[in-house]
């Protein structure tokens, strides 16, 4: 990643929230994280192949969670060992997805550029705060234990906008040493025949794991692609419909759940 020379422990001292959030995950052992990552990828892949069933969907989601947990766990270890993982040569999860939104380009761009809006449609983001200049602080939700459904915990990182062209393009990248190394780029173009704006997002996560990471990335890419696609769909819905349609919380004849 960008920090080709940086090898020291990152800026947690400057950001107590990041460190606090990170602590939740440090009680998972190395073996546990490998199992999390590979098991999660396998689970996600298995779920993905059966994604038109409720079970398949939850497998995909569960698998994605596990991998995120595995990824963030390894990042923490690497930080502790002061290892620079940026050039480990591992493939990342990189996915690109597009959506067409029947709104003017400046309006669509402005909504995204106000980074605080992102958690309104990105399912696993809890909060994004612009912290001055081009920097921002991101907080994501992950379950501590997918099997026991233990309550959600959070991981956090800081990011910086790398490039922006008004109404056309934004790219960002997590700061060196972030628990979840990630980057993204969103391109805004006019759709054909006054049909609004095409939004194309490319999101990358980098598991610093060598061969295991590459394997996990291959297995997991479809699941991440689906997550990004669903985030973009929610973005479209929020802008076009003014809200994101839901049935969660509605009434039904099922006793165990209501949707």
């Amino acid at each position: 990643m960008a920090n080709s020379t940086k090898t020291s422990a990152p800026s947690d001292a400057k950001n107590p929230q990041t460190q606090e959030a990170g602590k939740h995950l440090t009680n998972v052992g190395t073996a546990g994280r490998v199992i999390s990552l590979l098991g999660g990828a396998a689970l996600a892949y298995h779920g993905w192949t059966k994604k038109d069933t409720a079970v398949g969907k939850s497998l995909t989601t569960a698998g994605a969670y596990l991998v995120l947990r595995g990824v963030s766990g390894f990042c923490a270890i690497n930080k502790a060992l002061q290892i620079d993982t940026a050039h480990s040569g591992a493939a990342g999860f990189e996915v690109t997805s597009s959506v067409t939104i029947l709104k003017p380009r400046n309006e669509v761009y402005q909504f995204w550029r106000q980074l605080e809006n992102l958690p309104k449609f990105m399912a696993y983001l809890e909060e994004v705060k612009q912290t001055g200049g081009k920097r921002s602080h991101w907080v994501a939700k992950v379950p501590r234990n997918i099997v026991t459904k233990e309550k959600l915990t959070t991981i956090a990182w800081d990011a910086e906008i790398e490039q922006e062209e008004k109404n056309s393009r934004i790219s960002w990248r997590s700061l060196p040493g972030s628990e979840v190394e990630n980057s993204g780029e969103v391109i805004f173009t006019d759709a054909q025949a006054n049909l609004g704006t095409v939004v194309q997002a490319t999101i990358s996560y980098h598991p610093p794991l060598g061969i295991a990471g590459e394997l996990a990335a291959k297995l997991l890419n479809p699941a991440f692609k689906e997550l990004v696609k669903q985030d973009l769909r929610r973005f479209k819905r929020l802008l076009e419909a003014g809200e994101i349609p839901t049935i969660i919380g509605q009434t039904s004849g099922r006793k165990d759940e209501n949707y």
Partner: protein
Amino acid sequence: MKAICWEGINKVSTETVPDPTILNPRDAIVRVFLSSVCGSDLHLLGGYIPAMRAGDIIGHEFMGEIVEVGPEVKKLKKGDRVVVCSVLSCGGCEFCQREEYSLCDNSNAEPEWTEKAYGYPVAGIFGYSHALGGYAGSHAEYTRIPFAENTCFKVPEGVSNESALFTSDAFPTGYMAADFAGIEPGDTVVVWGAGGVGLMAMHSAWLLGAGRVIAIDQYPYRLEQALLRAKVEVLNFREVDVLQALKDMTGGRGPDRCIDCVGMEANSTGIEKIYDYAKQYARLQNDRPAVLRQAIMACRKGGTVSVIGVYGGFVDKFPMGAAMNKGLTFRMGQQFGQRYIPKLLDIVARGEVDPAYLLTHKLSLDMGQEGYMMFKEKTNNNMRSVFAPAG
């Protein structure tokens, strides 16, 4: 509150469930006065539409009064008497802007199903499986209405609840079928299926200038309604060879416009019947397309086949050669209700068509299973069972 829930194939039960609440800013809650069964529910009941879950509240054709509105609902208020369109539309997407409301990009809360099955997601529909959004349906004391300003239409003074009810679905669906048929003045129009939607398509064909309308069904009591109420000619496919009869009736030329108001569970006769039932039973085809095949064969060269009966998946032995070589035009789709409902309420208010005669059995919510079985088995001359939660 009480609600009729789908429990399994050919099994519904009346359950006590929590009252619905506002979940989104554009929602409203309607107290249901009348909620009708629909022929398309029979596909759910028969297990032909996947994505039903035990406990789903069914029903999509209804009217009632507003009892609560979300913060973004300005044009409706508590106490408004409304008819509710069965199909949900966001109003803001490309398709809603074109008034193709059942193609709405955004109103389906569970878009993954139809995106996978059909390539792109289609609009949500009340009580019509998780493939079409998983929204709780209307056979209940109260129903949550997403995008309420787009979904609810105020009933004009002087129009009874019974007359307004069918402008929710049967009338706009039948009207769209006739509209899509592209009827020109004097045309001969054939409607397969003399149920609620078919009868409304017959009335609509007259409204749109047909010179002659012919109904096809197998139930004498339904053909009698077509004859007496919709004032059309009738054919019973159990008694006559439909293709020959239509040729004979049109001087060998064939009907100009053919409308399929039956869909995926068509009844037929002879070898074709055995073939389609066997394949559907073995899940080698989802749908029994006997009416569609017959409409294609019957239609005159250069005519139009309009399909409003519901299909869910694949059909077999589709006579593409006949369709192509005769230069037929096909139009089809789930109803664009929001496009037609205001106009149809006016037509009902002026007394030009009164769909209230479709209501043959008014029942309490406790009679869910009986109401559906009567409708399915066509007993007691049932045209539509309608649930009236408040009595």
